[in-house]
Structure formats: structure tokens, C-alpha cells
């Protein structure tokens, strides 16, 4: 009997340890929601919108994790490609669903190119993919600025004065995306009580989930899982390790590009020079909040993460205002939480790796004791 409770204690402790981040978040949310004073329908509406807006981006992170490359901080590259696609459709004056499709088509080759580059570089930095992809995103940000701020309008033909800077080249700080604003969300209108449900967006996300599930079952999905466990063994069995890793980054980048288009079409306007740089951090934070680790992530993690993370994101400014009289405080708090979560998740991951390495000695010592 005693033994049983002991093992139960242990399993509870293990459960808590393995799900530390989500549990922390549930606790914080549970405190913040009543303090913020939002009504239930308002919360539900906001959550439905935010899940629709962000899930696609977060799901795009899953493929490189499957291939053992950790969090793809380089998803920013895909976001840049998506933004370039949106700049072009705005320039061409295309609207509605066709505009979304066209933006996706335009973004695809750019994403593939950027993803290929990123993957090539990451293959040269095995073991520190994350910090490298993080720096790549900064580096490419410079290139993006160069293209969008100096080449567009001068080298690349852009004429629409609504998006062009008055000086004649370069795109404005903020591009109004009225032409595609919420077109996907409102494609199939559904209203339950006071809550609007963006059905079409959810259908697209469901499609992507099916794609991911199907992808796991393909040969290449299996290869990625093999590569993630042991590159050498995979190589010996004839799997093209580098190529597989490269593909995972490319797929992730392309999906991130589409995700960015969906995200921005929901937002209705685009912050040309800053929108992409925040997206990587927040998507990764959301995924980690959902209980994913650097080595393992599932679709369940995505949705749990998006719900918890955005719940906090939404309520914290109001909670800060009600609690301290400063909404600003809540804004800083959610930034802190995003970074804190990533830090904790990274630390836990590294510590777990080290703990596994220590196991061998323990079993040997035990063998001696038993003698």
C-alpha cells in the first residue's frame, strides 16, 4: 500500500515536471482572467479569432522539430516571403480570396529559396541549429530591409502610391490590407449567439493538420524521425541526412509564409518592417506553452499552446490595468512571459539531456550495491 502511494507520488511529480510550463500557464491565466474582468463571450470570441489567426504559423514549426532541428527561429524568413507576396497583391490591386491565393503563390518560390539557404547554413552548424537560425533571421532581416526599403520602387516595379513611400521607392511603414481583410474568416459566415466563428479559416487549419498527420506517415516523415534520433545511424542506413534536414526547413518556411498571409489578412494591416520579427518569438513561445519541448511537439501542443498563450496575451494588459492601474505593465508582463517561457523550456531541455547522460553510472552503482 505504502509502495503504491510512493509510486503514485513519483508519477505525479514526473507529470508535473514534464508539464511544468503548461501548468504554470494555467495558473497564471486562472489568476489573470477574473482580474481582467472580461466577459465569457468576449473571451471566447477573442480566442476563436486568435486561434484562427495564429495556429497556422505555430504548426509550421512542427516539421523541423520532427527532423530534430529544434525550434525553427528561421520561420521569420517564411514570414518575410509572405509579406512580400502581400506587397505584390496590394500593388496589383487584387482583392478577396483570389488575392490570398495569389499571395501564397508569389510567396512560395521566395520561401523555398530562403528555406533552402537557411537549411544549407544549418547543415553547417549541426548541434547549434537554434542559435544559428536565430541569427539567420536577423541577417535576412537586413536583406529584407534592403529589398523592401531600397529596391522596391526603384529596381522592382512598384507604383501604387498607397504603399510606396513619397520619396518614390521603398514601402511604407504600414501597408493597409483592406483588400484582403478577414476575407477568409468571413467566407463562410457562422454566428452563434454573439460570437462569430471564422469557419473557413478553421477548415484551412484542419487541412494543414491533416497534412501534418499524413506527412508523419510518409516515408520522408519516417526518415525525419530517424534523422532526429541519430544522424549517423540514419546515414549508415542510406538515408540522405542533409537533404532530409534541408527539406524540413524548406517545408517549414513555406508553411510559415502561408501562415503569415493568413495572420496578416486577419489583422488587416501590415507593419512592413516589424511584423515578421515578432512572429517567430511568439509562435515558438506559444508552442512551448502548449507543452512541447525542443525535441518533441504535437498538434495538440499547438492548440493548447495557442489558447493558453493568447489567453494570457489578451487578458494581461487589462489585468495589469485593473491591478496596478497601468496597462503598460501588462504589456511588458506578456513580453516577459514569452521570453521566460522560452528560457525555461530551453533550460529544461538541456538539463534533461544531461540527466540522461548520467544514468549509466547510477545503474552501475546500483549493481554493486545489490551484490
Amino acid at each position: 500500500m505504502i509502495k503504491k502511494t510512493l509510486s503514485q507520488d513519483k508519477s505525479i511529480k514526473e507529470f508535473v515536471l514534464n508539464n511544468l510550463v503548461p501548468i504554470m500557464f494555467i495558473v497564471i491565466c486562472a489568476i489573470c482572467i477574473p482580474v481582467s474582468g472580461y466577459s465569457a463571450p468576449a473571451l471566447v470570441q477573442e480566442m476563436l479569432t486568435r486561434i484562427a489567426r495564429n495556429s497556422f504559423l505555430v504548426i509550421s514549426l512542427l516539421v523541423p522539430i520532427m527532423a530534430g532541428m529544434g525550434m525553427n527561429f528561421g520561420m521569420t524568413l517564411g514570414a518575410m516571403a509572405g509579406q512580400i507576396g502581400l506587397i505584390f497583391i496590394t500593388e496589383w490591386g487584387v482583392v478577396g480570396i483570389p488575392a490570398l491565393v495569389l499571395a501564397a503563390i508569389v510567396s512560395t518560390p521566395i520561401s523555398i529559396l530562403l528555406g533552402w539557404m537557411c537549411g544549407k547554413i544549418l547543415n553547417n552548424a549541426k548541434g547549434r541549429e537554434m542559435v544559428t537560425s536565430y541569427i539567420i533571421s536577423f541577417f535576412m532581416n537586413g536583406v529584407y530591409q534592403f529589398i523592401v526599403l531600397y529596391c522596391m520602387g526603384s529596381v522592382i516595379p512598384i507604383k501604387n502610391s498607397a504603399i510606396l513611400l513619397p520619396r518614390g521607392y521603398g514601402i511604407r511603414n504600414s501597408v493597409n490590407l483592406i483588400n484582403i481583410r478577414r476575407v477568409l474568416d468571413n467566407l463562410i459566415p457562422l454566428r452563434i449567439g454573439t460570437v462569430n466563428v471564422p469557419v473557413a479559416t478553421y477548415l484551412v487549419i484542419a487541412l494543414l493538420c491533416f497534412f501534418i498527420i499524413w506527412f508523419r506517415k510518409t516515408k520522408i516523415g519516417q526518415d525525419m524521425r530517424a534523422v532526429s534520433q541519430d544522424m549517423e545511424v540514419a546515414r549508415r542506413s542510406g538515408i540522405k541526412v542533409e537533404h532530409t534536414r534541408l527539406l524540413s526547413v524548406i517545408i517549414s518556411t513555406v508553411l510559415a509564409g502561408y501562415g503569415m498571409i493568413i495572420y496578416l489578412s486577419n489583422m488587416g494591416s501590415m507593419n512592413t518592417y516589424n511584423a515578421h520579427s515578432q512572429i517567430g518569438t511568439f509562435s515558438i513561445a506559444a508552442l512551448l506553452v502548449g507543452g512541447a519541448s525542443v525535441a518533441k511537439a504535437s498538434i495538440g501542443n499547438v492548440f493548447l499552446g495557442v489558447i493558453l498563450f493568447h489567453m494570457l496575451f489578451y487578458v494581461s494588459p487589462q489585468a495589469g490595468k485593473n491591478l496596478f492601474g497601468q496597462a503598460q505593465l501588462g504589456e511588458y508582463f506578456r513580453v516577459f512571459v514569452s521570453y521566460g517561457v522560452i528560457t525555461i523550456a530551453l533550460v529544461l531541455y538541456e538539463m534533461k539531456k544531461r540527466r540522461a547522460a548520467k544514468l549509466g553510472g547510477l545503474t552501475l552503482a546500483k549493481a554493486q550495491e545489490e551484490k
Partner: protein
Amino acid sequence: MNKMQRFIKEFGWPRLIIAAFLLSLFVIAPFAGVNIGTSLTDTIMRFSMNGVMVLAMVPMIHSGCGLNFGLPLGIIAGLLGGTLAMQFGFTGKLSFLMAIVLCTPFALLFGWAYGKLLNRVKGGEMMIATYVGFASVSFMCMMWLLLPYSNPQMVWGYGGSGLRTTISTEGYYYHVLSDFLNIKIGHLSIPTGSLLFFALLAFLMWAFLHTKKGTAMTAVGSNPIYARASGIKIDSIRTLSVIMSTWLGAVGILVYEQAFGFIQLYNGPFYMALPAVSAILIGGASVNKASITNVIVGTFLFQGIVTMTPSVMNSIIHTDMSEVIRIIVSNGMILYALTRKTEETR
């Protein structure tokens, strides 16, 4: 010829290109109507502002903790020291001294905790350092709003609580080092005090690396297993290096502020690590090797580019692309260092 190739290989193409780029800027400058004297003054001024923060990279590189992307943590300690010195009403030169004194306990504490953390995540230091930096800056964003500062020069005019985003150091430690023994020759103005202060810290660092502990630190970075086999307690050496780096980061930001004239709080410190990291890499350091020379050369090259490109570019093509060039050069350099095959062994 062979010698030449080897030199290039050792020096690295990116570094060579950057140096050539800067050199060409200096050559073009007079034709573009840019005053060399002012540019040089600017470069030297920025060098003296940033040198200490670049120096802060050295101990952690030496002990094998990699590039200190967590420099913002040190900067926070410095900001705490700087603001507290003003809050307590120290003025003039004394305020600078007191800022250093007051930031020290914070730097030691933060550095110690940060070092302990990094010891538990060996191999993944750089990514975690980045996020420790970010998390601490965003945490302090809340603290700046909440902490009970009351000096009217620092708090928001209305409401009377919460620190301003930028605080003038006028009347406190504004230019205490820069104006000390300042030499003026025509357009050229040399902030001797700042340079001397940097030289002092650089000398202390150089000297430390020649002591028993310093030797041990270098060995830990060069081959941790060798060091362990020689009886070195790797973890404590690493912690020491992190504390040193954090303290230098704290002092570095104070030096920066006294020359700049303002304290930047809130989001200010977020990305301050990146210029320092790329500066030391441009100077010839790698992920686990760095010297004082790397610091000096790197800071000079980096700050030279940052000051020269806007003025020269602007006068030639009437477009200020300096920001883009800075981003590409500095991050490109870090990327190059991270992907070099020779450093993949560890």
C-alpha cells in the same frame, strides 16, 4: 603566394572584406566631401563608448561559454547602478564612481546566478544566454515602472511614478570620462578619459589572463576535458568568467551612458549584445578564442563602419543605407563564426 593564402585563410574572408570596405570608405570620404577629422573623432568617440562592452565578451569566450548573448543581464546591473546613483543624489564625478560601486553587487549576484544556470546547460549556452538576456530585460521593463524611484529628473512628469524611457545624465555623470583630459586638434577631438578608462580595464583583463586563474580559464575554453584532468574545477571557473563578463557589461553600459548623455531604459538593452558580439568577431575572435587585440581591432572596425557608412553613403548616393549595412555586416559576421567547420568539433 602560399603564405598569402594562409594569411587569408587564417584571417577569414569576411573580416578581410570588412576591413577593405572600411578602408575604401576612408579613401572615398574626402572626395565625397566628408571631413575625415570629424569622422575619425566620431569613430574614436564610439570606440571609447563601446570598447568596454566588447571587452565583456572576452572572459566568457575564454572559458568556453561562447559568445555572451546574455550581455543585457550585465547591462541591467549597470542600469540599476546608474539609476540608483542618481536616485541617491550623487552628482558630478562622484555619481559615476558610485554608479560603478552600486552596480557591482547586482552584477556579482546576477552573474553568479547566470553562471550557475549556464553550467547546467553546457552545449546550449548561446541560445539560452540570448533568452536569459531577453527575459531579464522584459522583467526589468516591469520593474522600471514599479520600483519606487523619486528623483524628478528620472520619473515621468505626470503621475510621478515609473521611470522615463530616456533619462538625461546631465548634471550627473554626463561626459565625466569623455571630457577628462580631452584633446582637441582642429576637427579631431579625443576623449582621453574614456580611452584611458578602457585601457585600464583592458590592461586588468590582460593581466588577469596571465595569472594562474586566468591561465586556467583559457585552458577550460581551449579544452575543458584537459582542464578537468588537470584538476581544474571547470564549473567554478566558468561561473567566474560569467561574473566577470556581467560586471564588465555593467561598467560598459555606464561608460556608454556617460558619453551618450542618456540612460535608455525599458527596451533599450534588448539588442545591445549583438553589436558587441559581432565587433569582437570582426576583430578576429572565434567562438572560443579571443584576445585584447581582437577587442581593440574589432571595436574600431565595427564602429568605423557604423560611423563612416551613413556619412559617405549619404553624400554619394543620397540614400542612407547604413542601417541595412550594419545589420548585414554584424549578423553576417556572427553567422560566419557559428558555421565555421573548424569549430564544429565541440
